[in-house]
């Protein structure tokens, strides 16, 4: 008899349960997951290197395409970085319009997630419902910016399009309808047997582990970790917008569902507040093309969690270094923790539970250990420090 203990099953990169290429090697004991190993990098497109070859205006469009779902958050971080180095003040109206877009994006992203999660547990009706409502948000986005996915709204110094009275009216009308729908989804989330059976007690992530593995966004908040960049370090117009940070302490996929549903209400209220208090005035401040030497770091609360961007400029019209840390990267570590001890059948919903966005995340290359001075050689910290000093000394001695 063959003893079938610890069977390794590869899932991905092309797999019906996954929407994007990624690879999980799941070690199984019977039906139970013993260990999960995650391999990423299938959608690595070398964006950070490309950014260094393009000027600041071209980069707006490139950075928007880091991710098609949370495209606005990325440009928001980018323009914040550039504006910090340029030291320009952007008009209040532009700040409000930016916040409006951040929240519209959260609305459509959460609706999208609920649909995908429903699909993963075989509840396709939910997928059809939420995606149908999501189209309304897309309509607003298209009405204002002319595009459904990559809006090209942000620019250095402000936004590119203004909001008219007509648009304002349409946004407020749609919010009334969406609030009703959100209330319906809340009902569904807490009463529907399919969701309860498949999500409760599945994919447990304890608060201490969430903190240790630096989980962010709804994943962390569903584990009772009270973090939200919108409140903790307000960007755009969040400082004068009242809202609540939603947390639950169920620590499972169900909690992540509830957090996202309740965040729909918060987003709707924020959008109402913004529209009713929209300041008048300019939407764009004048910005020079060249950016002086400097460094900046910026973070925003993307729909999936904290998104961090770093920029170093060298006085030319192109960035010297750009670095992006997306929320999925932070949440990915906790997946392997959540998977341990669950059943194989729960893998898709647990993976979908963090709302992974691989397109955003694949920006890291992991190299296997090799010989010194050969490709693939892993440097330790001390080596790296010495190497950096030597490299710069040879280059012309910026740091000695």
């Amino acid at each position, binding site marked *: 008899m063959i003893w079938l203990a610890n069977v390794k099953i590869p899932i991905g*990169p092309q797999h019906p349960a996954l929407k994007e*290429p990624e690879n999980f090697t799941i070690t199984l004991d019977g039906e139970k997951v013993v260990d999960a190993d995650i391999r990423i990098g299938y959608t690595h497109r*070398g964006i950070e290197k490309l950014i260094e070859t393009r000027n600041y205006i071209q980069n707006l469009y490139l950075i928007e*395409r880091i991710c*098609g779902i949370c*495209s606005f958050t990325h440009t928001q971080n980018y323009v914040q970085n550039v504006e910090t180095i340029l030291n320009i003040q952007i008009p209040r109206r532009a700040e409000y319009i930016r916040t409006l877009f951040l929240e519209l994006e959260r609305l459509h992203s959460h609706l999208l997630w609920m649909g995908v999660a429903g699909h993963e547990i075989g509840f396709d009706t939910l997928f059809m419902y939420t995606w149908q409502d999501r189209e309304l948000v897309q309509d607003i986005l298209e009405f204002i910016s002319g595009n459904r996915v990559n809006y090209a709204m942000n620019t250095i110094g402000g936004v590119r399009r203004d909001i008219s009275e007509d648009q304002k009216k349409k946004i407020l009308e749609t919010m009334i309808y969406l609030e009703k729908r959100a209330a319906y989804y809340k009902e569904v989330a807490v009463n529907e047997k399919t969701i309860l059976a498949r999500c409760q007690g599945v994919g447990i992530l304890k608060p201490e582990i969430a903190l240790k593995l630096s989980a962010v966004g709804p994943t962390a908040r569903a584990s009772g970790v009270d973090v939200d960049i919108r409140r903790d370090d307000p960007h755009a117009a969040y400082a004068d917008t009242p809202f609540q940070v939603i947390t639950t302490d169920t620590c499972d996929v169900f909690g992540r569902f509830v957090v996202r549903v309740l965040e729909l209400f918060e987003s709707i209220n924020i959008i109402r507040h913004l529209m009713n208090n929209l300041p008048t005035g300019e939407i764009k401040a004048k910005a020079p093309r060249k950016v002086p030497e400097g460094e900046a770091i910026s973070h925003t609360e993307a729909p999936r969690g904290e998104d961090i961007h770093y920029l170093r400029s060298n006085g030319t019209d192109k960035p010297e270094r750009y670095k992006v840390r997306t929320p999925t990267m932070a949440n990915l570590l906790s997946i392997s923790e959540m998977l341990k001890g669950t059943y194989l059948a729960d893998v898709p919903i647990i993976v979908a539970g963090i709302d992974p966005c691989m*397109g955003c995340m694949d920006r890291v290359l992991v190299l296997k250990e090799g010989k010194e001075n050969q490709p693939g050689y892993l440097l330790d910290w001390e080596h790296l420090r010495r190497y950096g000093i030597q490299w710069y000394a040879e280059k012309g001695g910026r740091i000695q």
Partner: protein
Amino acid sequence: MTGIVTWARLKSPWILHMNCGSCNGCDIEILATLIPRLDAERFGVLLKGTPRHADILVCTGPVTTQMKERLKRIYDQMPEPKFVVAVGQCGSSGGIYQGSYCVEGGIDKVIPVDAYVPGCPPRPDAIIDGLVKLLAKIKEGDKNDK
């Protein structure tokens, strides 16, 4: 006999969606064609999970180095006759990622493509339009074969 086969082929084009390193923008628009508002299923389109069931491969993205071999393998696993639709600017030409060290620059650099849908991302209606045009092309091609 061929008449029946063509008829069946035109009425049930099953698709396989493959992400070859796209930004997700095109992928959500492909999924958005399936929702009630546009309902691609009225053309018999069904999203399949495995290449062995699919007639049409719908690809997005500029094909990253990692996905190149995998795209070829998926293509080889599909039964004949097979058709490929490249969705989005990156799928057609590499788009905004052109010149990067790890993208091939378009689906047609790796496998033959039958239809291109431009746009970054194309609207869901444009994707359906591309698919319908491809079906018309298949019909034409079959007529010429006879």
